[in-house]
């Protein structure tokens, strides 16, 4: 999979509506890979032409070192603001 950076980003309002279809937990937006990451499920959902693909079959399984420990997650969210 290539990371072009040319893919249209997801609309922020749409992002606010979305949760992981499996865990119903929060998603974090990985801008670089243009994916929506569910740390709880260990899955990354792709975004194709600006459309979030919230299908478990289409999701990428996270490598162990990619998952962000929960205690660090809040901090990271703060940094994004």
């Amino acid at each position, binding site marked *: 999979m290539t990371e072009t950076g040319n893919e*249209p980003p*997801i*609309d922020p*309002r*749409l992002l606010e*509506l*979305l*949760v*992981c*279809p*499996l865990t*119903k937990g929060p998603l974090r937006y990985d801008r670089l890979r243009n994916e929506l990451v569910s740390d709880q499920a260990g899955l990354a959902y792709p975004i*194709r*032409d*600006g*459309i*979030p*693909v*919230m*299908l*478990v079959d*289409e999701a990428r399984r996270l490598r162990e070192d990619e998952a962000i420990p929960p205690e660090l997650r809040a901090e990271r969210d703060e940094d994004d603001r």
Partner: protein
Amino acid sequence: MTGDRPLRRNSEVLAELVPLEGARVLDLGCGAGDLLRWLLRRKADAFGLDPQLPLLLRAAGTVGPERCIAGRAEALPFADGSFDAAIFFNSLHHLPETVMPAALAEARRVLRRDGRLLVVEPIAAGGYFEVMRPVEDETVVRAAARRAVRAAAGRGWRLEVEREYTTLVPVAGPAELISRLAAADPGREARLGEVRSRIERLYARHRLRDARGRTVLEQPMRVDLLRPD
């Protein structure tokens, strides 16, 4: 010719049963976005969900990707209480019967307490149904959708309105119908080639003219309005 069902447009019935202006509405099984476009014209804050990305890309071409989500009705990617209304328009019967209860439970979850769910389904009768029957006989799956809605009433849902009507679907000719059926489900292509002549014969038998002189096929419809109990 329409039995005791009144002649109505789908859009009229929908607008009567769901307040749309400013409401956040989820179109479940939005396909290429016909209903989504209509909801947006009615000033609804509408979003469409469908598992088929090729269809969604077509929808996104007109309504914008910010209103389109690839996903399954039985595993909705939305937070609890996100929507004022959800609509299954001609889509519930496309789900496997085994996941229908989960899909209805998910719709319940993403709706607000005072939200409403509209299930609009074609009845397995009428000219349109008869003409498409050689391609795909939906009698069984439509009955399954009906059972699922019935079963939901009392299990988290209250059935507030149930209504039947007949709608007239403009179909200029058999070729148009065939391309429409192929567009709705790309898996039908091979079957459509085999039954072309039967569709042509059935079309000639069932076609009617509406008040404006257009060639139409009758499709009886059923709508159920469910509210969280």
